[in-house]
């Protein structure tokens, strides 16, 4: 098989591109419509989306609030402006149609293809950054094969249509920069990432631990606050913004799982893992490769919290590196088990758009089916099955963390 300069077989990247183009077009999740419903207001000059929604809620055809930090709004709003040029006024009339036919349109494939294009570009960018991070040409093929063809990222990015891939790209960039001891851009990326979803904030201490002197620490902190403040400035005085951010879904969910110790006290499992990771990281602070830390924090959210499926994208780039380096010929059952656990946990949600509903552009009758838990409830308790699946994911995920720390953290 002929090889490219990236040490990848011919056709790997292009076939991955074609696969992504088709998956972008063929699947629909209502979240992409609600994201772009809010994003459309940027081109109308609305800078503080939180206050705008609060003031106009009763007049809007869609009445949910915008639940993400402001950079999400500016990025999606910018792409929305480009998309409406490509797709014409049909896009805007569809985005504002929340009637019974609001989740279908004769031009749905075009809409999905164009609206998901930034995710596709960032997906490829992550792949290239991972190859650069890996620096081992013998495992590049495994890494690229995993990243470009694993079903979890296809599901979370293109089927569920979620923008978490933007955050993931920023955290991989931070990983890469920290490895090269460039803490300012790493912290800047994490600051920007925090303005998309809150989890990159959890990764900042590991970057700061790598500063060799006070000057570098200060520079990193300046980078972080710069990334944080720039998108924040337009809404810094908005009480509606603070209200939205104080109700973060992530924070509520990661604190839910805990160990009761009596006296009404509970030890949140995620916080225990996070604290342990902090001290392990402190112990190896001379090493600039933060893969074990980034993997542990992002994967633990999936393992011990009632997660949203798209959160898998946070840890998946780091899982890809572990996959490439852990002799997958022997260890592939762990990854298959983790993926099976992940998918079963998700599709057993009482949400038509966790699985069958995603196929509605290809087959509108997909919406006629009851949610999957209702379909299996005649044979097995769906909650029990879902809990078993999550346990499988957690067990397999813990093995990945063990592998990462045992074989990789001491290099």
């Amino acid at each position, binding site marked *: 098989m002929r090889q490219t*300069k990236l040490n990848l077989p011919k056709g790997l*990247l292009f*076939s*991955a591109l074609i696969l992504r183009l088709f998956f972008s077009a063929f699947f629909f999740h209502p979240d992409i419509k609600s994201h772009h419903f809010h994003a459309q207001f940027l081109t109308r000059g609305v800078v503080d989306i939180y206050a705008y929604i609060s003031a106009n809620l009763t007049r809007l055809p869609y009445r949910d609030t915008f639940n993400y930090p402001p950079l999400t709004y500016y990025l999606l709003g910018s792409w929305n402006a480009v998309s409406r040029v490509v797709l014409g006024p049909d896009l805007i009339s569809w985005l504002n149609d929340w009637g019974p036919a609001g989740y279908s349109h004769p031009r749905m494939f075009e809409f999905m293809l164009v609206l998901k294009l930034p995710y596709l570009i960032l997906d490829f960018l992550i792949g290239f950054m991972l190859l650069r991070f890996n620096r081992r040409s013998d495992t590049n093929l495994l890494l690229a094969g995993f990243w470009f063809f694993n079903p979890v990222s296809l599901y979370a990015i293109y089927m569920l249509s979620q923008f978490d891939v933007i955050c993931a790209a920023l955290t991989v960039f931070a990983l890469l920069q920290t490895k090269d001891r460039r803490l300012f851009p790493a912290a800047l990326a994490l600051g920007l990432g925090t303005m998309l979803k809150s989890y990159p904030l959890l990764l900042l201490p590991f970057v700061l631990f790598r500063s060799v002197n006070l000057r570098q620490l200060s520079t990193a902190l300046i980078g972080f606050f710069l990334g944080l403040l720039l998108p924040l400035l337009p809404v810094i005085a908005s009480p509606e913004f603070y209200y939205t951010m104080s109700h973060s879904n992530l924070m509520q969910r990661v604190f839910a799982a805990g160990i009761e110790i009596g006296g009404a006290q509970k030890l949140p499992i995620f916080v225990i893992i996070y604290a342990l990771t902090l001290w392990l990281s402190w112990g190896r602070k001379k090493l600039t490769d933060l893969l074990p830390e980034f993997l542990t924090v992002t994967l633990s959210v999936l393992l011990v919290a009632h997660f949203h499926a798209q959160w898998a994208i946070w840890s998946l780039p780091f899982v890809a590196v572990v996959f490439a380096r852990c002799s997958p010929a022997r260890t592939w059952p762990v990854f298959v088990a983790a993926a099976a656990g992940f998918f079963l946990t998700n599709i057993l949600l009482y949400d038509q758009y966790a699985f069958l509903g995603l196929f509605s552009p290809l087959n509108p009758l997909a919406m006629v089916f009851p949610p999957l838990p209702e379909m299996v409830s005649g044979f097995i308790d769906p909650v029990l099955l879902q809990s078993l699946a999550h346990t499988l994911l957690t067990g397999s995920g813990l093995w990945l963390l063990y592998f990462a720390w045992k074989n990789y953290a001491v290099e």
Partner: protein
Amino acid sequence: MRLNKYWLIAGGYILAAFVFALGLCFGIRRLPDVSQPRLEKEVWVYSGHSVSQTIVPGHDGFNVIDIYLRNVALRNQSPFTFVLSDASGQPLRTIRLTGYNVVDGQNIRFQFDPIPDSRSRQLTFTLSSDSPENLAIGAGYSSADKSLTFRSYYYPSRRWEVISSVLSGWTETLFRLRFIAILLFLAVSGYVCLKRIEK
């Protein structure tokens, strides 16, 4: 370009998506027919005060109707009856339940053996209850439509018709010139970019 395993994987994913989407047609036990989804208020069903609604199904095989019902505070435990009759008043299907089966505001599904010749027939369903007025069951209603809130379904007796409706949907949406143009543009420009990156 020689077909290698990556093309097979990518093609396999795409083919699997199409096959699965089409395969869903074989699992469908009911398809949507006429409906009135708007809910403005409730009309109340109690002893001596039954509520009726006439519908004209668009397909043969009418077998399910979801009706918005409300058992306020779940206080009603009395017998509750659904009767479907034809234009002459002849009962075709009867379902008996109690207030225990009705929650405080939700679509309740009434499923019965398919009516083979239901298409364009005038059918009437009647809801009646033995309960006193203060424990009445509410049925969703829209004044603008002068109709109860319901969704009806039919059993697809000819599976091929379902499959062909999905296939014709594909020909209408997949072969749109603008979609193909955007897809080709992105594929070609992506190919050029990837070539440059590889070099």
